[in-house]
């Protein structure tokens, strides 16, 4: 056991460290001498050199009840990590998908350039068709506007209808209902003499159907999506494990993580910054802690 005065000198030397740069040679020499003496007298063996930390909201003193709580938390956390196969099972599933990826990628690559070429050709055709439709619709709006100017009563009626459709459109947008949005937009444009209902048929007649994604590419997309969802699942379990450990131990997440980190340090040999009492408590539960905190 390191004598108390030596432990104090070691603590003082560490605490006084910021003085080094500013207080000049004397303070520096004092500290170095103190540190050297402490280290030498400790035989460079810090296993028995407890120097209490500054406890605060996160660094709690590891008393016997707290170590008991930490152990319960670690157990609960471990149970979450491994329940129903837990993270190892997910990683195994992911590994199995990963093993299939080269073959899936090869099959998808064999058809992807053909698909992208066809898709680009279709997009270019669709773009031209949309241009033609825009010109047609502009003419329709021009004619409808001229008719409205000639008939003020009908114009007022159209104004009222337009306002109703705008409200319906806003409602459909707010609810994210794409079918309703399309219907309201089509009806709304009818007021302006524009018939959108035949646009899709026009594009299909001109450009054909949208090229379908080849099955091999869909399978690759599915495999990638499945891998990502397994990642999310694994990480969610990890988060749940931390939360459960925190809950069962009665410590906040930060306190639990810090207690775990400090316990790990103590049972694996880094025994500075602990009080004698903490080391005694941690040593008494060392074998139980090591079950969760392997060095």
């Amino acid at each position, binding site marked *: 056991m390191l004598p108390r005065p030596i432990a104090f000198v070691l603590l003082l030397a*560490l605490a006084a*460290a*910021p003085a080094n740069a500013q207080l000049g040679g004397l303070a520096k020499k004092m500290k170095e001498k103190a540190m050297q003496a402490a280290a030498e007298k400790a035989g*460079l063996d810090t296993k028995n050199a407890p120097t209490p930390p500054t406890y605060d909201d996160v660094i709690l003193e590891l008393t016997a009840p707290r170590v008991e709580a930490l152990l319960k938390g670690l157990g609960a956390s471990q149970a979450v*990590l491994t329940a129903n196969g837990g993270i*190892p099972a997910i990683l195994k599933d992911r590994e199995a998908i990963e093993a299939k990826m080269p073959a899936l990628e090869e099959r998808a690559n064999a058809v992807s350039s053909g698909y992208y070429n066809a898709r680009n050709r279709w997009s270019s055709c669709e773009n031209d068709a949309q241009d033609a439709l825009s010109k047609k619709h502009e003419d329709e709006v021009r004619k409808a506007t001229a008719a409205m100017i000639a008939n003020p009563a009908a114009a007022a009626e159209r104004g009222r209808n337009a306002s109703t459709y705008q409200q319906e459109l806003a409602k459909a947008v707010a609810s994210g209902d794409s079918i309703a949005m399309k219907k309201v937009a089509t009806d709304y444009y009818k007021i302006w003499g524009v018939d959108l209902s035949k646009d899709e048929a026009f594009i299909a007649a001109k450009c054909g159907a949208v090229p379908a994604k080849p099955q091999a590419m869909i399978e690759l997309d599915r495999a990638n999506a499945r891998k990502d969802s397994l990642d999310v699942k694994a990480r969610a379990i*990890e988060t749940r494990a931390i939360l459960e450990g925190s809950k069962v131990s009665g410590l906040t997440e930060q306190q639990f993580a810090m207690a775990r980190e400090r316990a790990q*340090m103590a049972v694996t040999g880094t025994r*500075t910054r602990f009080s004698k009492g903490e080391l005694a408590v941690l040593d008494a539960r060392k074998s139980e802690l090591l079950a969760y*905190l392997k060095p």
Partner: protein
Amino acid sequence: MIRAAALVLAAAFVAAAEPATLSVRGVNGSTAWWQEDRAPVRWERAHPVVTRAVAWHRGAPGVEWGELSLEAGGEGWRTRVIIARLDPRRVRFDVQWGVDSAAQPAWSLAKAPANVRFAVNAGQFTATLPWGWVVAGGQERLGPGRGPLSSAFIVDRAGAVRVVDGDTLSAIRRETDIAAAFQSYPSLLTGDGTVPVALRTPCAINCTHRDARLAIGLDRNGSVLVALTRFDAGGEALGFIPLGLTVPEMAALMGALGARQAMLLDGGISAQMLVRDARGAVRTWRGVRRVPLGLVAVPR
């Protein structure tokens, strides 16, 4: 006793008012080379004061390692840095996965292959899984993580190494020639030696916490640089004490060593590193816990 307490209080007061500095310690005393309030926002080249102060040792082919004594503020007043410089043309990097069947981290230096020339813990982790993207042995183990200030270390099938920003990974991930990769945070240097805005003064992250640090980066010759800090007041026996530099100081250190891009790895009690010296003997700086990921370099 009262005088000593007064000294501590005075020191704390003075230290709070002064900007952080970094100095190299040599036989002729200390030479300051970086100051927080005048820190470069971009490191265009290595700092000669720092490079001259590194005592380099020849390691196994493709491996050099060196030591540097630094003086920082507060508890970092005696910090030794172990630096490894690795040539990807002579060593091949791979990532080793280490999560066991009980969902516990399982990698340590002991898991490195017999012919290893260099090994270090890789990435960051919370409880069990490595954070972010992992490709090990040519297989993707986990998808990219999202968050500011992350970087990724990538090795292609030809053995070439690059360090990229984390926000570019959704495209890079689909490249088919990636042999190994991992993601970590925070980025210390990006692009061509630029210090991320969040690490400059005023700092957007916790830039005052001192800890044992571990960083990896690439220099302008394409070599991989790894820097591990050790507490240096009491010899190597006390080296594992988790005290050292702040995050901006690590960015400065990597810039001063000549890195263009760099990021932190898990330091503290996780930090562990191995280099094989020129005679074939292994030198290790051990951590005190297992981690889920290791980076190893073996002969090409």
